[in-house]
């Protein structure tokens, strides 16, 4: 363990730590800060978020038939309030609008009417009247719930469903899971973006910290002393262990820091909500939002540890930093693309994503670095140390 600690001291050298902090500050302000400080992002995201909170507080995590009736009642009350607002406003009277329905019909039917556009702009953006933002969202929620059998899942799949996908949708609908209250927009969308940014930031940090593990010794001409000491060629495995332990510590630290920041987004009330909700997406698995977050963290660990192992291997075969960058940069680009498009939940578990594909991606991600390191360990025992 002492050798592992000594190797970790080199990885966590103060100069490296300083650059690590600078990288993270930069990455945070470029990629993460916005999704933490600006949530919910504008309207109607804020209105959906507020309606979601109201629903969870009032109805719990599921919306049953009686609760839907109550929700509709609230919706009608909101429309009444909007009617009264319209009747009290002179500009609506000038345009001959006497209630919300007339306003909505004129707005939907006459996009070219500048007077309607000006009025809408005033009440929506200048005055920021909540009613006019919330009513369409409430209406959407009611429609999605009422037409759940016809619509749920289809909008995400362009109507082309495989038998398995069809079965999965039916399973969610028939089991009643679909009644879950979970405002995918903006809660899931925000989590999706921020989980990508966090994973990419951790990936950059881990690769930066771990990559010099062998090249540092090679550049400093240390191999002769290291491999002729008592530990001998077993040092290679100790260094791999030190690299992996360091990668685990860095990943854990950054997950705690960044997901700690994410927790300030006040999404706690949705943690127990099922993610297969009539208000959102269809997943292959029956996860709660908390379980989705935990799966994301778990898969983030898998990606980071596999990439660390790969970075350790690359470090052990390269003779200079330029060649390390030359090899790791394309690999980083591939993993970046995977994180952005398919490797992490939310996308990984979407109904549109075939699960064997995800299985293959992770199998390759784990097996290639493991095989490469195993080969290197065996080879290290046999070869001459000439460097």
């Amino acid at each position: 363990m002492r050798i592992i600690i000594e190797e970790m001291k080199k990885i966590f050298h103060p100069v490296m730590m300083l650059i690590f902090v600078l990288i993270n500050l930069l990455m945070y302000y470029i990629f993460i800060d916005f999704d933490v400080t600006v949530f919910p992002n504008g309207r109607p995201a804020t209105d959906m978020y507020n309606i979601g909170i109201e629903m969870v507080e009032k109805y719990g995590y599921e919306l049953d038939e009686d609760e839907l009736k109550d929700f509709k009642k609230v919706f009608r009350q909101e429309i009444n309030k909007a009617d009264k607002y319209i009747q009290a406003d002179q500009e609506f009277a000038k345009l001959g609008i006497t209630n919300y329905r007339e306003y909505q019909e004129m707005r939907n039917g006459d996009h070219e009417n500048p007077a309607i556009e000006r009025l809408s702009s005033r009440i929506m953006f200048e005055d920021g009247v909540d009613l006019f933002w919330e009513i369409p969202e409430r209406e959407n929620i009611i429609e999605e719930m009422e037409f759940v059998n016809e619509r749920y899942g289809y909008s995400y799949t362009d109507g082309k469903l495989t038998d398995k996908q069809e079965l999965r949708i039916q399973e969610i609908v028939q089991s009643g899971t679909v009644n879950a209250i979970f405002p995918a927009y903006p809660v899931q969308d925000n989590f999706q973006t921020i989980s990508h940014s966090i994973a990419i930031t951790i990936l950059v940090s881990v690769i930066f910290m771990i990559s010099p593990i062998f090249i540092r010794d090679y550049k400093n001409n240390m191999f002769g002393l290291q491999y002729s000491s008592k530990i001998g060629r077993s040092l290679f495995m100790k260094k791999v262990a030190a690299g992996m332990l360091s990668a685990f510590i860095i990943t854990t630290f950054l997950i705690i820091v960044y997901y700690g920041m994410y927790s300030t987004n006040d999404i706690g009330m949705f943690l127990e909500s099922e993610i297969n909700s009539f208000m959102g997406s269809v997943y292959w698995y029956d996860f709660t939002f908390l379980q989705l977050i935990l799966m994301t963290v778990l898969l983030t660990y898998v990606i980071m540890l596999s990439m660390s192992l790969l970075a350790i291997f690359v470090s052990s075969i390269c003779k200079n930093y330029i060649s390390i960058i030359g090899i790791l940069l394309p690999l980083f680009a591939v993993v970046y693309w995977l994180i952005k498009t398919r490797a992490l939940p939310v996308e990984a578990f979407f109904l549109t994503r075939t699960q064997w594909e995800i299985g293959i991606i992770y199998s390759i991600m784990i097996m290639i670095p493991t095989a490469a390191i195993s080969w290197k360990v065996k080879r290290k025992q046999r070869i001459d140390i000439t460097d």
Partner: protein
Amino acid sequence: MLTVNNVSKNFGKDSVLEDIQLEFSNGVYGLLAPNGAGKTTLIKMLTTLLYPTKGEILFEGQNIFSMGENYRDLIGYLPQAFGYYKNYNPYQYLQYLAALKGISKQAANNKIPKLLKLVALEDAIKKKMRTFSGGMIQRVGIAQAMLNDPKILILDEPTAGLDPKERVRFRNLLSDLARDRIVILSTHIVSDVESIANQIIMIKDKQVLVKDSIQAICQKLNGKVFETEMEFGQVQPFREQYLSLSERQENGKMLIRYIAEECSSPNWNQVSPTLEDVFLFEYQDQVMEQLK
């Protein structure tokens, strides 16, 4: 006893050492040969960094590669141009190597100040090694080789970067250490081993040319080393006829030391051969090649 038994080493198709047969018991052994003769290859095999292509190396009858860490625990090694971390101070550096050598932190804490005192670096224990001179770095290297109190001390070109005072100090240190251990000192600088080595090993044409005491080795040139004075104009034709070992100006003439089969002039003074004379004689082709 450390035994090198018919060891050969090839790198690909290139043969570097062939049928090396050596035995080491306590004492100082000077491994003397020009650059590129295979000294470092032999030393790297003795430290288990290289595997012999043929033959075996035994310590107390056991193959050193089978002994693994039990053997490496017995050796102290100072490689040629050895490595260090520039941001480390000697204390951190020796602690790291102590960990690799399986020495406990507490034992290393006791040992490191003593070793640094031995190599006169006790005042630089907390200074970054990037600020050290070549001689200071070399002394840290000697200290690290001594960390585990090795039974076999293997030093590859250990005096590189040391000033004359440090060289004398280093030789004295080695003489003390060699009383109860094997010290193998590889060098191409004859004066490094001349005064301290019990035996000299010379490698030539991939094989052991000689392994003997300095006195016995010098016997080989007995009666063949001469000195004479001559005018400067006579030097060039003289060089073409005889192997010149050293030349220096004295009293407006050139004093030349050389090798000849027999005394051909009353002006020639026969002198006692030194190890350097033998070295230059044996490696005259390589030496001339290097001089070109």
